[in-house]
């Protein structure tokens, strides 16, 4: 028996997808709350998600929660908060190994689902807000995360670039928010925002397990049947407008290697053709950027392109010596122009399709990929199977790809310049 998928609307604005895959050895549950991304609530949503996955009305602290999850054979319970277009997606995730692997016949999945239920519907409260002690712990964690954003330079460059690429759009907001705001938020504000999320967010729940088990679905159906819902529709795709003049920003950071981010925008509606164009341009190790800018010109270790459909934006990123940044940007422009001019062979096109197909075909091999696949389909109102998507990709022509490539225009160039040749000072202490 192969993979079985069944999606059902279990309450107003709440979808539940049950996926049975006999070959896996774990169960995975993901509850995705989708809401508008805005400066006012983004940070509160983030801290609320961290709080509800750290304790609940019965398991009163993160420490106790950690202990319970260890006892359930290292079961997972965590949140991730991401941006999808101009929306914020707050995902509560749980996972465990199958009961058949337990030492003493424990009901690992049953116990974990019980914990998740309490986390979502019976959070750890004190007065009119979240528990103040747990809130303080999470506030510290959040401020530390904001402080540490600079640590990963490649990520930080992209993070800073997006503030300029999407200036004035909701997606320009950080899901962690600012340090200043983090110092002012209260447990009551976070709980208010959480209640609003439960009431108004579009919710998609995914449950993947190795055998038929409707416990999770029925439990969530029951929970949401008594919940008051006034769902607020969200727009998961909002194409970012092209600036009238190319925005060029240079910022300096103490580091060794300069980072270059270039954003190209499009109004192209042919999603798959735009993805293929980005692959031929810079999305594979046989792309134009890799072969020419890295291998032939020896300018950098990485120079790649990726297409963000939800914003109609292609992002190119690279790391280079400061004095070679201009040369790199010129080379990137030359390579994009060559794709626009159709300077690629049928073999190149087929290679990009095969590369794309390779990823699509493997979707059913891991629970997290299965969930991502169907969630993305839901977001774009285009829920197709991997096989159906594959058929569409293979039908694309070189004209489709050239047309998509031609629609990309340069919008922003962000350079995070290394201002310290050494980048670091070392002190050794002998004892």
């Amino acid at each position, binding site marked *: 028996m192969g993979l079985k998928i069944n999606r059902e609307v279990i309450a107003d604005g709440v979808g539940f997808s049950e996926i049975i895959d006999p070959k896996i050895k774990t169960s995975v549950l993901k509850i995705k709350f989708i809401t508008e991304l805005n400066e006012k609530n983004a940070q509160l949503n983030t801290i609320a998600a961290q709080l509800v996955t750290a304790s609940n009305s019965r398991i009163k602290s*993160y420490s106790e929660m950690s202990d319970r999850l*260890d006892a359930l054979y290292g079961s997972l319970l965590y949140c991730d908060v991401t941006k999808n277009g101009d929306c914020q997606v707050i995902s509560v995730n749980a996972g465990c190994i199958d009961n058949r692997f337990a030492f003493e016949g424990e009901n690992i999945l049953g116990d974990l689902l019980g914990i998740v239920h309490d986390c979502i519907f019976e959070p750890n409260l004190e007065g009119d807000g979240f528990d103040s002690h747990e809130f303080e712990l999470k506030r510290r964690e959040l401020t530390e995360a904001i402080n540490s954003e600079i640590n990963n330079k490649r990520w930080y460059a992209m993070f800073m670039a997006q503030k300029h690429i999407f200036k004035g759009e909701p997606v320009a907001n950080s899901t962690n928010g600012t340090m200043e705001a983090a110092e002012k938020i209260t447990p009551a504000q976070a709980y208010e925002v959480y209640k609003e999320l439960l009431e108004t967010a579009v919710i998609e729940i995914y449950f993947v397990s190795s055998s038929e088990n409707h416990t999770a679905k029925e439990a969530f159906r029951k929970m949401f049947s008594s919940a008051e819902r006034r769902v607020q529709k969200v727009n998961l795709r909002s194409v970012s407008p092209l600036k009238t003049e190319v925005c060029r920003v240079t910022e300096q950071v103490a580091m060794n290697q300069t980072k270059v981010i270039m954003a190209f925008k499009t109004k192209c509606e042919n999603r798959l053709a735009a993805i293929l164009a980005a692959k031929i341009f810079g999305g594979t190790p046989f792309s134009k950027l890799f072969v020419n800018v890295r291998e032939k010109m020896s300018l950098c270790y990485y120079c790649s392109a990726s297409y963000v459909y939800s914003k109609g934006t292609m992002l190119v990123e690279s790391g280079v*010596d400061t004095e070679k940044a201009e040369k790199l940007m010129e080379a990137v422009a030359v390579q994009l122009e060559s794709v626009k001019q159709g300077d690629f062979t049928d073999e190149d096109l087929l290679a990009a399709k095969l590369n794309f197909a390779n990823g699509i075909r493997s979707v059913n091999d891991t629970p997290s990929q299965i969930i991502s696949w169907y969630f993305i389909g839901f977001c774009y109102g285009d829920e197709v199977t991997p096989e159906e998507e594959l058929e569409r990709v293979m039908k694309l022509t070189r004209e489709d790809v050239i047309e998509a490539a031609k629609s990309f225009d340069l919008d922003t160039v962000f350079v995070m310049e290394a201002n310290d040749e050494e980048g670091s000072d070392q002190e050794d202490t002998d004892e």
Partner: protein
Amino acid sequence: MNKQIIKDELTGVSYVKIRHDSGLEILVCEMPGYTTTEAYFGTRYGSVNTRFKTAADDGFTVVPEGIAHFLEHKLFENEDCDVFSLFAKTGASANAYTSFDRTCYLFSCSENYKESLEILLSFVQEPYFTKETVDKEQGIIAQEIRMSNDNPGTRCFYNMLRGIYHEHPVKIDIAGTEESIRKIDADLLYKCYNTFYNLHNMVLVVAGNVKADEVLEIVKRKLRACEDVKLQTEFLYEPETVVKKEITEKMAVGIPIFSIGFKSAPCSGYEGMKAEIEAFTALSVITNPASEFCKGLMDEGLITSPFSNEVFTGDGYFTSIISGESKDPYEVRDRVFGEISRIKTEGLDRRLFENTRKYTYGLSVREFENPESVASLLLNSFYSRTGAFDSLKIIREMTYEDVTETVKKRFDPEKSVLSVIAPK
């Protein structure tokens, strides 16, 4: 050709282990129902192997730091084309990596695995280096080194190793330095290739949507028999002590990040894996967020998120590592020492130990989940000279006494190093 079928009753997973006549070890795990095929072609050649000789050599050869990694880059280019362009025709996603103890070439595909396997076996056996191609690679790798040097986590880790090891080459950066890679030329690359890329020193792992018989048929056609060169590697004498107990570097970071490494005696094979699992369990108990010790650190704001743990072990090195972020890493280090001292006197918390054992076991079961993780498990079994299912057995049999003893034996503050990356 020696062929064994090894099965684990608990997970139902089995794999075939073959000692091929060519000297190559072949590990194949057929995983019905999966679409993906994962393959690794690896050699026991990593950044630590800087001193070596074969039966044909009079003495040991010493090579520049980072040459194993450089060689990995260069093998991706053959005489006619870039290897990526060959994989582009099959749709496979190909890559390679070099670590301290290994160099591996790999692909992942959901179709045409036989064609991709032929490409993998061929290009690794067909080196092609010239002055021009070597010179060109210097620039690319120099940028890779610079990128890595901007990563505070990586810097913190390497600084810690430099504090721990006097002589063992595990203290050098896998990619070498911009200066060391300038000493590499085509002749040196061929010397290293001919020494380490010998099938007697290599492994082929394939897992997922694959048939063992088909793999063997391809191997038979593509492998070039080679003589065992009787490879010997050596490391200089490494004292039990550490070099420096504290190393601090300043970089553009938000708050200080740190690693505390505890040096202890290396071991290998099944005993090595047992020691590694026991040390990991000990680390997980010491830094368990449910412990009074960690609760105290969190309540005081000395740490805001859980520690991360790692047991870093290989040929001639064994270090148990606690890492994290803190406004005061020096105080955290002192508190960790205090907790270790308490455990040595009072013993581990039994409940925490039992829960941690279950946590470690859960992690191990998850490794059998998909072709990627199974291939990685099989590969690691080759490098650690163990069986792929040994970890499950060790965890099930691990006792409270074993782990308590490990804390006493492997967590000596006198043989520890604190590495800190502090804000500029």
